[in-house]
Each structure stands twice: as structure tokens, then as C-alpha cells.
């Protein structure tokens, strides 16, 4: 279901941005208030709840022992899934994940995988036979813009929070010691910054209103050293080379800012 944006709302947001202002008074490169809690779900091996402005989501990590994919016999498996629950917005419908939900999962997955957040090779128990499999489920509870940055922050926090039992191999059998829980082999805090292009300007962390009227969107995943690990351009209008470079530049400081919440 599409929601129709009143023309005057579009005009007013565009006008303000042209004047260098945002409706909620933020600077163009300013995040809304971020709050992050971890370990919120006892039954999940790792979990995090993120509130970004009024956007709220919970990420839960579940682990199990499974067979590796045949092309990566020495690597653990990471599966990222997200659900845009019908509770989160009046126009979200129940049912299997739609294209927005799949995009959110895949871009989050890319940022985490390519950002080498977790060392998947260390999740191998018996090569070709037994590896740790991590399911990351992103549960979107309240949608008020910029799910992407919230999802990546929540996913990384949940992975940092995840503990698995120590696994040893005896006679080709995996023995789990639930008394000795260990954290995942954690590598890197790769995070993501999303910008909305409105007119000729880029605004960080778009609000719902800004997302509804934006021309295009660009998300940049970045590791602590400032290298880029994932990107996604979205939206129906084009974006220029210079704008992309500008976004990358801003993302350096801003992912660093977000990273502080993970300490």
C-alpha cells in the first residue's frame, strides 16, 4: 500500500532544506537521538534493541550447529533476515518479506559480511561437516525513518553480545560445553550511514517525512579504519559522483560517532 504525501508537505520540507534547515531542527549531518541496549532477550544467544529517533527495532541472534555451504566448507554461516512488522507502520502489510524488507536484510548482511564483523572462519568446528550457523533476525517494531542504520547498529551490537558454548571435537562428534560460554570471534565494528538526497542536498539519518519525499538515498558501510565495506543507492532518482564522494566523507566521522554506542 502506498501512502500519498501531501504536496504542501513535500514543498515545505524541500523549501526548508534549500534554506539549510530541517523540519526537526537538526543539522544536515546530525543523527537523531540514539539509544542502544543489549542482552534484552534472554532466550536469544545475543540481542540488541535500538531506538533511533522514534524508529525502534530489536535484533536477535540465534545460533545452532549446521553443515557449511559446500563452496565454503571452512566457514561458519551467517543468515540475516528482517521483518517489517505490520505493527511498525500503518502501510506495512502482514505476509512474507516484501522487497523493502529483503533489501534491508541484504544490505545489512553485506555490511556485516564484507565488513568482516565476525570471523566466520573461526566458526568452523569440523571442516565440511559442522560449523556454527548464526541467524540474525531484525524485528522492526516502529518505523519512523532510516531503518538501515538502526538495523546495522543493532545487528553489530547483537553479534557483540552473542555467546556460544565451547565446542570440542571427540571422535568426529561435537561436544558442547554450556558451562563455558564464549563470545563470537569478533573482528570489526563496521557500521552504516544513510543519507537522503532532497533537492541538491544530502541529509543524514532521514526522518520518516524526509524519506517519504526524498529523491534518492545512499547508504555507506564503513569499517573503523575508514575503508568502505558496503554501499547501496536507493530511490527512483539519480545521484551524482560528487554527492556520493561527499557522503563517503561525512560517513567517516559519523560511523565513528555511532561506534561510541558500541563501547
Amino acid at each position, binding site marked *: *500500500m502506498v501512502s500519498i504525501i501531501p504536496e504542501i508537505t513535500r514543498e515545505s520540507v524541500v523549501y526548508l532544506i534549500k534554506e539549510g534547515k530541517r523540519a526537526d531542527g537538526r543539522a544536515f549531518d546530525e543523527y537523531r537521538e540514539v539509544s542502544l541496549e543489549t542482552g*534484552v*532477550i*534472554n*532466550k*536469544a544467544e545475543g*540481542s540488541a534493541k535500538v531506538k533511533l529517533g*522514534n524508529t*525502534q527495532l*530489536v535484533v*536477535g*541472534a*540465534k545460533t*545452532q550447529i549446521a553443515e557449511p555451504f559446500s563452496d565454503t566448507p571452512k566457514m561458519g554461516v551467517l543468515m540475516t*533476515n528482517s*521483518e517489517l*512488522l*505490520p*505493527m*511498525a*507502520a*500503518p502501510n506495512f502489510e*502482514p505476509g*512474507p*518479506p516484501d522487497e523493502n524488507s529483503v533489501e534491508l536484510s541484504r544490505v545489512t548482511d553485506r555490511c556485516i559480511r564484507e565488513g568482516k564483523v565476525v570471523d566466520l572462519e573461526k566458526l568452523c568446528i569440523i571442516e565440511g561437516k559442522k560449523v556454527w550457523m548464526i*541467524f540474525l*533476525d531484525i*524485528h522492526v*517494531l*516502529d*518505523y*519512523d525513518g532510516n531503518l538501515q542504520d538502526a538495523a546495522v547498529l543493532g545487528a553489530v551490537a547483537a553479534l557483540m553480545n552473542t555467546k556460544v558454548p565451547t565446542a570440542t571435537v571427540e571422535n568426529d562428534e561435537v561436544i558442547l560445553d554450556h558451562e563455558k560460554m564464549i563470545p563470537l570471534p569478533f573482528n570489526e565494528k563496521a557500521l552504516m550511514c544513510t543519507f537522503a538526497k532532497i533537492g541538491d542536498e544530502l541529509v543524514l539519518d532521514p526522518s520518516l517525512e524526509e524519506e517519504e519525499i526524498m529523491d534518492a538515498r545512499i547508504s555507506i558501510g564503513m569499517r573503523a579504519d575508514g575503508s568502505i565495506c558496503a554501499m547501496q543507492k536507493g530511490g527512483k532518482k539519480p545521484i551524482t559522483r560528487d554527492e556520493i564522494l561527499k557522503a563517503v566523507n561525512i560517513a567517516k566521522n559519523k560511523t565513528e560517532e555511532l561506534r561510541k554506542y558500541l563501547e
Partner: protein
Amino acid sequence: MIKITVESDLSTGTETSARADGRAFNELRPLKISAGVLERADGSAYLEMGGNKVLVAVYGPRELHIRHMMQPDKAVLRCRYNMAPFSVDDRKRPGPDRRSVEISKITSEALTPAVFLEKFPRSTIDVFIEVLEAEGGTRCAGITAASVALADAGIPMRDIVVACAAGKSNGQVVMDLSEAEDKEGEADLPIAMMPRTGEITLLQMDGHLTGEEFERAIDLAVEGCMKISEEQKKAIKERYGD
């Protein structure tokens, strides 16, 4: 966190407790309810009871786009009970299964008698129940939170429906079974009711109880409902700083 303190000086308190979590036979798990926790939904509530964490959003009354569901003289009340994949020990595959479809149906039926649906013909009221963590008794937790969310959404109602289970565990009839008690117990009896009139709007049972045990169980479930009902009202009023 709101903790229910159960007075041990009740007349029935002579029976001793043999419950794993040390509760008295007629004691609820710690309960916490808050209303108005979501921005987008018309009404919402979050409930924790023991290890259960349940979030409910209500949208509506709103336009119903599915013609064949439309009721010419009243609103339809649609419920969707859903468990998060990470809410249980073994990851649950996302999407509805037979259990959640059944719970959705009986939840809708448990809430319907309390709602003045006739005030909003041809529309829908949608209740979305998300179990973020499950520890026994999620359907009751869902119904209890859903009523608070409906009230928060400004839906007119005759009463605030409340739900609680009783059952038999370790040979003893007890209130509000925990997950462990439910798994190993002999019987489970969840009910929902309108506390003012005492009318029961949901009743399920599985297990084995004698007629006399059943009567004691239903009385305990009602007693649990009455206690939870007070917490529901408190949560609604607290939202407005009362």
C-alpha cells in the same frame, strides 16, 4: 518494574508451595505493563510477565480494503499473534504456523465481546501481538496487553479484557504456569474474562484434571485475572501521569 506482592495472609495460604520458582500456588510472576510505547500505532502496550516480553500495537478503526470481510453494521476486529524467531530456545521460522493462526483467532474472539464494534460499521480494528520472548502463557500475556493497547487507541469498550492461566503442576493446582510448569505439568487452563461482570471470553484446556481440580483451577485463574486487571488500569492511567 512493578512487582506484584501477593499477601500470604490469605485464608487459603495454609497450603505450602512446591513450585520451582518459589512462588505461592496463587502467586503471579512479576508483572510490568506500560501503555503508549510506539509512535506510529494508534495504541500500544508492552508487557513483561516472568520471562515473557510481549508488545502489542493497535491500528484503527480504519478503512477496510478487503470487501468480503466488511461488516455492514459493525467493525471487524482482526488479530495477528506472532512470535519473533528469537523468542524461543530453538529459532522459530518467521511467519504464521497453525498454532499462531489458532491463537490469533481465539484472541480476536476473546476481545470482541468487550468492544463496541457497532460504533464503526464497515471498518477494521487491527491488533498486532508480537511475542519478543516466550516463557509460558504468551497467549494470556498477548490478550492482556492487547486490551491495554485497545484502550490506549481510544477504542470504546465495555470492559478491559484480561487473561490468566491456572493449571496443575507437581500434583498441585497453581496460578499462572511458568514455561517449565507448563511443559512438565499435568494440565493448563488459560482463560480470558471481563473482570467487572466475570464473564469468560476465552477458555482452553489441555491435560488432565478432576472436576474438583478444574473448579479450583478456574477460580485461581479468575483470581489471577483480577490481580492483573488492576495492573492494566494502572498502566493506562500512568500514561497520563495520574
